[in-house]
């Protein structure tokens, strides 16, 4: 069966510091991968998605970047965090295919920028 791992679970970082959140998927190959952010009082906002190694699409201009160095690994990064980067970050995967594909989410990473 497929599983998705996301870490760290909780992170407290000062403004201006770098960020790296990692996500890996097991039990499938060539998944579509996604990074979402959930801020207080707001819905889930799509940040990035990837349909293959090195292929990243950005949905929202921001202080963040994403990379996919391996088929089942997705990394969210920032060189200098802002207060507004605080939130709950969720990685998700879906199978490739032409139908409506269910996204399966990880447990999330809670980021607090102080």
């Amino acid at each position, binding site marked *: 069966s497929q599983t998705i791992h*996301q870490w760290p679970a909780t992170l407290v970082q000062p403004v201006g510091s770098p960020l790296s959140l990692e996500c890996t998927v097991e039990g499938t190959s060539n998944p579509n991968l*996604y990074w979402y952010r959930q801020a207080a*009082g707001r*819905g*889930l906002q*799509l940040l990035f998605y990837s349909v293959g190694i090195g292929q990243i699409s950005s949905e929202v201009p921001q202080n963040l970047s994403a990379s996919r160095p391996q088929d089942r690994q997705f990394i969210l990064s920032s060189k200098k965090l802002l207060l507004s980067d605080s939130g709950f970050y969720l990685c998700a995967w879906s199978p490739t295919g032409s*139908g409506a594909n269910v996204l*399966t*989410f990880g447990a999330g990473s809670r980021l607090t920028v102080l």
Partner: protein
Amino acid sequence: EDQVTQSPEALRLQEGESSSLNCSYTVSGLRGLFWYRQDPGKGPEFLFTLYSAGEEKEKERLKATLTKKESFLHITAPKPEDSATYLCAVQAYDSGYALNFGKGTSLLVTP
């Protein structure tokens, strides 16, 4: 642009008191409409996918329905363990496979 609006924002029910959550959507071409459940501090958990108007799906005390403009999540005789935030999302043909989420309905079921 795809839009998803959920109502109410919050709902409090007594155990056994049935009700419905609403999800109104605007999308150019619907590939699928999804319902998720999210517990505090956790990632969303998939409940249902609906593909076309008139479709219905059930799981335990939950039943999801779909029209051309909205979806309802009916909760029959809820229990306290049904307390969670319920999220609705749409997947459009022209936006790849990403989901566009509403802000959710926070449901509290009291004994």
